[in-house]
């Protein structure tokens, strides 16, 4: 396992697989996520992006920030495009037309993954293509200005389900993508956060080396649409873990392992405060929303602990 400094060196310089000059928002963590994940591959990586922040900011023609083969087709098909690339790779290798070993990485935001690309992802996992799917989850359609997604948390205000006189924002809890992916009985699924580079790197490495498809879900606090100061991205990511809002865990060959267990989990308010999307929750009359949110987080955490303790294969 390389040190943090060695990882940092691998993500910069002339050999980096994605280079500077892209147009990510100030404070956006997607750059850190993709650099860390790409650095974890010991083989060349072919990247497929769904339409979304990453695609838009890295490729405005005639420029590209990619120093590794990269493609994009549409919003919902990163996993199925990756299926085709993997099929081509197998066929061309079998026929002796290529000889290099590669890793295939499909990347989407939560919109391209939890929602519109969900079927393509499920199909590709079920067919057992050898690829890793990475979702950078900023909990909404942030590329287009904070519309609701299946990953948007309970109580968040978005432009399509805004908080108002009779609404406290999103009334549903988000999907559990990690467990859905694990239900495909694939050998590696993990949840990581942008602030913990070592953990993310390790998980990306395991994903690339998995037997068959792997899924890696990474929380990506969005300074632009969660609306916090761009210096606080890592801080919010850390708080999401410390409040158990976004536990760091992995499901390896069906067995759950929690990577970080906060000794004193912080109250959810510490994560919520300072974010415009949750501002309304601190107004009189909405106290019950935070209470309910805290209960859901604690219940989910207790369930996750039981899953781990049981040792039962997912």
């Amino acid at each position, binding site marked *: 396992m390389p040190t943090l400094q060695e990882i940092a060196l691998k993500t910069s310089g002339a050999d980096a697989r994605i280079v500077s000059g892209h147009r990510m928002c100030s404070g956006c963590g997607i750059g850190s996520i993709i650099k860390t994940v790409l650095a974890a591959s010991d083989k060349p990586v072919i990247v497929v992006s769904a339409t979304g922040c990453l695609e838009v900011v890295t490729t405005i023609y005639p420029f590209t920030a990619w120093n590794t083969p990269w493609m994009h087709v549409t919003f919902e098909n990163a996993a199925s*495009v990756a299926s085709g690339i993997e099929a*081509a790779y197998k066929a061309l290798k079998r026929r002796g037309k290529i000889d290099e070993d590669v890793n295939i990485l499909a990347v989407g935001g939560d919109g391209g993954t939890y929602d519109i690309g969900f079927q393509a992802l499920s199909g590709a996992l079920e067919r057992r293509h050898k690829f890793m799917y990475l979702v950078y989850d900023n909990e909404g359609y942030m590329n287009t200005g904070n519309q609701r997604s299946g990953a948007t948390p309970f109580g968040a205000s978005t432009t399509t389900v805004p908080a108002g006189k009779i609404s406290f924002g999103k009334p549903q809890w988000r999907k559990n993508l990690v467990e859905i992916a694990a239900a495909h009985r694939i050998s590696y699924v993990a949840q990581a956060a942008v602030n913990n580079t070592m953990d993310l790197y390790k998980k990306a490495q395991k994903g690339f080396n998995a037997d068959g498809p792997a899924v890696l879900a990474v929380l990506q606090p969005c300074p632009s649409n969660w609306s916090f100061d761009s210096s606080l991205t890592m801080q919010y990511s850390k708080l999401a873990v410390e409040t158990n809002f976004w536990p760091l865990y992995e499901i390896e060959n069906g067995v759950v392992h929690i990577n970080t267990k906060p000794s004193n989990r912080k109250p959810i308010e510490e994560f919520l405060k300072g974010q415009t999307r949750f501002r309304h929750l601190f107004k009189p009359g909405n106290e019950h929303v935070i209470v309910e949110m805290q209960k859901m987080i604690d219940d989910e955490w207790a369930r996750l602990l039981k899953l781990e303790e049981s040792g039962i294969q997912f």
Partner: protein
Amino acid sequence: MGVRKAITGAQAAAEAMRQINPDVVVAYPITPQTPIVEEFAKYVADGIVDTEMVPVESEHSAMSATVGAETAGARAMSATSSQGLALMWEVVAATPGLRLPIVMSLVNRALSAPINIHCDHSDVMGVTTVGWIQIFSENAQEVYENTLLAIRVAEDNRVQLPVMVNQDGFITSHAVEPVEIFDDALVQKFVGVRSLDRALLDVEHAKSVGPLVLPDYYFEFKRAQEEAMSKVFEVYHEVGTELSAITGKQYPFFETYRIDDAEAVVVVLNSAAGTAKAAVDAMRAQGKKVGLLKPILFRPFPYAEVREALKDIPVIGVLDRSMDFGACAPVYSEFRNALWKLDRRPAMQSYIYGLGGRDIMTTEIEAVFEELLSGKLDPEHQRYIGLRG
């Protein structure tokens, strides 16, 4: 000389795919395309081909994975019909812009609603504006040869565009006909292998494919696509000449049948052209001067050649197996455009026939000829053949 086999249009498409032995085939079954996928899957299961076949969960993923495989450097093929084409439309529309020479069989079937599994051309006519080369086939023999031809046209460096090879659902796809299958080795030499020049899997030369292109460059991309489309005619002609050496047949942009001295000509696509030939023969036997024009290459559309072929015909009836609601039917529209430049324009009549698989009879086409010869036309309105009154 080939071997004559009694097979369906679907099997003819699968036979061509067997000989092509593509690197990758991705498809989702849909009536009436299903037997193509099933037949090809058997070839894979028996080791007759060594293609990597990906049985995906939807047509959207079928075209997406085909696009992924082609971009990676593989020769990848697919097949669909109707609703399947409609579901994959988004990716179908992206394919020509990515300049991917994918060849796909389209077994023409009516579009919902109401749901109907039988033949008409409303599926293909919904995608003629997005930049695929469109080739139509009258029978199983043409399906087979057009599929071979399509691979080479698509992959020519001057073109690099996708092709749909059309055949009529059930009428062609499920009817058994004698089909001459040419020698495997000769055909394989003709189709060759796809070059890896542009391959994404060439990791030494990293490429970014499918970037965001804003108003400063998007227009130029689309203009380049049109330029490639304009090259199809010469490439189609060259490749057709090469294929002739194996098959002994000609590969024109359209087929004309007994039109030299014709006083009335009918234009019709795909299997109904066979019916129309029988009607022409029956009318000719009665001394009536009628003929047929069967379009084969529909995109790009050979306007100048069509104009030259029909310049002396006084009256033309165009039969469409789909409608463009509130506007001229698609085939009629193209022929009217093609003939507009003539000093002496022919009288024209648009007819709609066969929607949702309704049969068209030789007697009905004979009645069309009688109407055209009588001069009792109504150019402002389309007429309907075989419709309940």
